[in-house]
């Protein structure tokens, strides 16, 4: 189901062709990183810290080096020293620890051997001596006055007055309306203040990190790996090694899920260093256990929000105090939390303070709309509470306060055309909104917001001799973006979408392209494709003019062919294939590039409606119906837009109900497997009805907004509000597991209340 503003009618954009890389993926032939093998390759294994916080006093690799099959052993000493203050210091010392390990699973050495078993045995033989330090495992511990300090150099940025002593707080971010908060709250008829806690969660991509690196005697290296951005793999790896970027070529493998977790690197510099030392290609593949312990969790939080509302439902004041743990290093959690917490609603008086804190757990990585699902959890459940308290319909409350074009964002600028109200209305008008509920069921409504970003992208369009086109871009295809690129190219060139071959080019085959993050691939790389195609059309018109003996101004490009519009009688139109066939005689190969820094990423809004059924005797919550609207701007390939929405919902539901990192008292992760880190399985979910709202982004030639991230923002509060509706219990700590739900129901008097 699609809600559409009037827009141009397109021949290809908005259709649902089979994706171009689909055949390889349903036949098992697609090559993901772990599927690649190089002649003579060795196998690399990482040595990891068993301690959450320790000083490395010595590493003895001599025994490991002498073992059968072992060709190279490396430690932090094999990499250039890096000092705090270096732009990528955190990334560098996270990939391989130097003097200190900061979490259980922190890499500190690596071994390459002829077989994986030999490498594993040798890794176990690397002797490391530690001075174990007290571990800081929670926000409260990190902020305690006598807390052990993780980084001696960490002075709080944004502290007022400026920090004089190191602490576990890398950043404090403050935003405010600059108005009198006391007066703002004084205008309110209802003031509520609530606290929330959430635990780190993992992106949970099914493909563990993997790469192969081959360093030649000429000092150049080639890396095959899966990532969300191979140019970033190149530059980050080069930074760690102290090399020039251009000594490294990165060839992207298919990527088996990322969700933000593959925007950074872990293995590649180790594989390159091992390969350089051994003079052989080195393959490294993480186990699932390593993925959980040493990569990507999204931050845990403590959030406190105070809202002031007038009796008619007008929000008048908001005060937010947000704390994000980004694991052992600084991260953007607090800033992004601060930028999203009040962004969806008109709140004239607001004050936001956000802290990042470091603790002895794995360094957090981006996860789909980073930080926003948690601020939405707090804000949207509080709005639900406000609606209940004031006797206002939850939908009406949101419609009354929703931001629209021209309203100021938290950052001060006025929003361009956005589709929040349209998303709310789409859900309000959906049959689900008024459908009756069954026994023990409850319904929850929640909204979500995400910025989306632009950044740099490149594309090359090559027309082939037969009139087909190859479109090369630098964005890895993490969920169907090849098909989107082909659709936009087809629309521009007037060539059938199946006559377009979309290709992800390596770092030496296409222009620089930033990481696929911030839902930017279809938006920004799509713009580069459109730019290249438009240049190509100019070129095609020129070639056709030559063939027709006409002036280029007399030739239009219509539906894949050059059409003569001049007054010199009739001339047959020239289809693209005819022009391609004569390319050699009209000026040579037909190729065009587009490369740009994309401006005008359009914010995305989403509104979700969730029904749950709660077993009040066991606390078990089942999601029984789900509807999700989202403003896509324009859906280039609606199936994959729906897929992004549905995937975001599933991840959000998992986050709401069961997913969490569990550590023991020493900071050792207790659930590093898919058995006990419980991502949703097929039987946990109903069908997810995705409503695509299309309020075109004025900054994109086809109106595209990013769609990859916003869908994960509303599910947590939607589920929480549904649980409240079913049970009368407000649960303000994640996950809302059976244990926690039953505790709440028991405390509330024992049975389904509402």
């Amino acid at each position: 189901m699609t809600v559409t503003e009037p827009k141009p009618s397109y021949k290809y954009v908005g259709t649902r062709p089979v994706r171009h890389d689909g055949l390889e993926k349903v036949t098992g032939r697609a090559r993901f990183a772990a599927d690649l093998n190089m002649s003579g390759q060795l196998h690399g294994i990482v040595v990891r810290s068993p301690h959450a916080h320790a000083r490395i006093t010595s590493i003895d690799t001599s025994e490991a080096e002498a073992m059968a099959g072992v060709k190279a052993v490396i430690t932090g000493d094999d990499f250039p020293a890096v000092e705090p203050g270096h732009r990528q210091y955190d990334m560098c010392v996270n990939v391989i620890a130097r003097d200190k390990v900061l979490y259980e699973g922190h890499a500190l050495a690596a071994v390459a051997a002829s077989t994986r078993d030999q490498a594993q045995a040798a890794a176990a033989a690397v002797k490391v001596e530690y001075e174990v330090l007290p571990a800081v495992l929670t926000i409260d511990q990190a902020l305690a006055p006598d807390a052990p300090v993780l980084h001696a150099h960490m002075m709080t940025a944004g502290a007022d007055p400026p920090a004089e002593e190191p602490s576990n707080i890398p950043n404090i971010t403050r935003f405010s309306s600059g108005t009198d908060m006391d007066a703002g709250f004084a205008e309110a008829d209802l003031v509520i203040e609530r606290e929330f806690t959430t635990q780190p969660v993992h992106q949970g991509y099914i493909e563990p990190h993997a790469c192969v690196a081959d360093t030649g005697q000429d000092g150049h290296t080639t890396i095959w790996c899966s990532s969300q951005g191979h140019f970033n793999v190149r530059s980050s790896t080069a930074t760690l090694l102290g090399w020039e970027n251009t000594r490294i070529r990165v060839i992207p493998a298919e990527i088996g899920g990322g969700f933000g977790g593959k925007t950074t690197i872990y293995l590649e510099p180790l594989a390159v260093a091992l390969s350089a030392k051994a003079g052989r290609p080195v393959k490294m593949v993480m186990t699932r256990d390593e993925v959980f312990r040493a990569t990507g969790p999204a931050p845990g939080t403590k959030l406190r929000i105070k809202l002031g509302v007038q009796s008619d439902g007008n929000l008048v004041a908001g005060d937010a105090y947000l704390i994000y743990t980004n694991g052992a290093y600084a991260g953007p959690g607090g800033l992004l939390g601060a930028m999203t917490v009040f962004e969806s609603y008109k709140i004239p008086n607001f004050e936001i303070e956000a802290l990042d804190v470091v603790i002895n757990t794995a360094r957090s990585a981006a996860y789909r709309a980073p930080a926003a699902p948690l601020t939405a959890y707090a804000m949207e459940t509080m709005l639900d509470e406000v609606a209940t308290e004031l006797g206002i319909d939850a939908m009406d409350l949101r419609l009354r306060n929703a931001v629209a074009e021209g309203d100021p964002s938290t950052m001060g600028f006025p929003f361009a055309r956005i589709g929040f109200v349209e998303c709310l209305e789409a859900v309000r008008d959906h049959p689900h909104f008024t459908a009756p509920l069954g026994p023990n069921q409850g319904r929850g409504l929640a909204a979500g917001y995400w910025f989306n970003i632009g950044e740099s992208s490149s594309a090359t369009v090559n027309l082939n001799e037969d009139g087909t086109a190859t479109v090369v871009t630098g964005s890895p295809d993490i969920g169907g973006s090849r098909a989107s690129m082909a659709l936009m190219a087809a629309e521009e060139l007037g060539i059938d979408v199946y006559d377009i071959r979309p290709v992800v080019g390596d770092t030496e085959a296409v222009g620089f392209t930033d990481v696929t993050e911030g839902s930017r691939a279809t938006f920004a790389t799509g713009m580069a494709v459109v730019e290249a195609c438009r240049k190509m059309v100019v070129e095609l018109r020129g070639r056709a003019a030559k063939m027709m003996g006409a002036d280029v101004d007399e030739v239009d490009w219509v539906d894949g062919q050059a059409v003569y519009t001049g007054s010199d009688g009739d001339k047959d139109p020239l289809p693209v294939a005819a022009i391609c066939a004569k390319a050699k005689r009209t000026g040579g190969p037909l190729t065009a590039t587009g490369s740009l820094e994309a401006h005008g990423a359009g914010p995305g809004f989403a509104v979700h409606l969730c029904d749950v059924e709660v077993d009040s005797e066991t606390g078990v919550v089942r999601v029984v119906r789900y509807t999700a609207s989202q403003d896509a701007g324009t859906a280039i390939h609606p199936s994959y837009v729906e897929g992004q929405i549905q995937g975001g919902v599933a991840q959000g539901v998992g986050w709401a109900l069961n997913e969490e990192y569990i550590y023991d008292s020493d900071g050792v992760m207790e659930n590093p497997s898919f058995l006990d880190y419980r991502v949703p399985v097929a039987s946990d979910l109903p069908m997810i009805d995705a409503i695509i709202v299309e309020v075109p982004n004025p900054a994109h030639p086809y109106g595209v907004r990013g769609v990859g991230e916003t869908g994960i923002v509303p599910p947590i509060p939607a589920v929480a509000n549904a649980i409240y509706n079913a049970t009368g219990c407000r649960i303000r700590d994640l996950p809302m597991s059976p244990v926690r739900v039953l505790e709440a129901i028991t405390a509330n008097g024992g049975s389904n209340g509402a």
Partner: protein
Amino acid sequence: MLSAMKYASPTTVAEAVGLLGSEPDARVYAGATDLIPQIRAGRPEPSVMVDLKRIERLCAISSSGSTYTVGAATPTADICAHAGLAAAFPGLVEASGLIGSDQIQSRSSWGGNLANASPAADTPPSLIVNDARAVIAGPGAERTVAAADVATGPGATSLGPGEIIVEFELDEPPARTADAYLRLIPRTEMDIAVVGAAARVTLDGDGKVASAAIALGAVAPTVVRVPDAEAALVGNEPAGDALAAVGAAAAAAANPIDDKRGTVAYRRQVAGVLARRAVSIAAERARERGGQS
């Protein structure tokens, strides 16, 4: 990992027992659904993995009319597909079907589930309420013990060196008898039981409970029988106060731990709920079954 291990696939019980006697670090397995992950997680590697699935007797289901014999390595997928077992022991068969995914069902077995001795295993409570017997082979003569006597603690069994479970024996239940099994998991599939409860009920001609057996999983080091609950049912209709007493007795009998999967308080409370519900389902089935056996 694992590469140094040898693999053996005996085709007779005697051959399997012989292998276990000759190799000090030999380890038997049927599905390996627990064993391979345990070794990957750092458990010491056996020298030989002895695969029991090529021994016909360990994978066969037969019935003598009054007794079912089920090979200890029989995949639970086969057990679930067996109409006779499903009719006679619906709860036990449901418990069998709950072990993991369809993929795991191809490999999981009663023998493996019991000998792995996880406190949270799904089938032992149901085997126990149905008075299943385990036939054990080893260096000495074959012996038969109650299934309840096999697991002695987390990861520990009463099996002697070189002994394996060969098969299980289950007597056809008497008239007006049925069982049920319920477990609590956070998701709908793929989880380890946070609490499991098995019940078997025999009704008399008046619909009152003639005998009952109730056993709980995941709330103690081994399966817990709940004699107080059983006593509360006998002579009463399985409803009202009697059911409430079952819940209370089950909660009281539970002796769980706090861990990553649940808390003491949660497991106690839910043990009572599941025991009560399992009794209700078993009793309903027993009523439906009437005089058939």
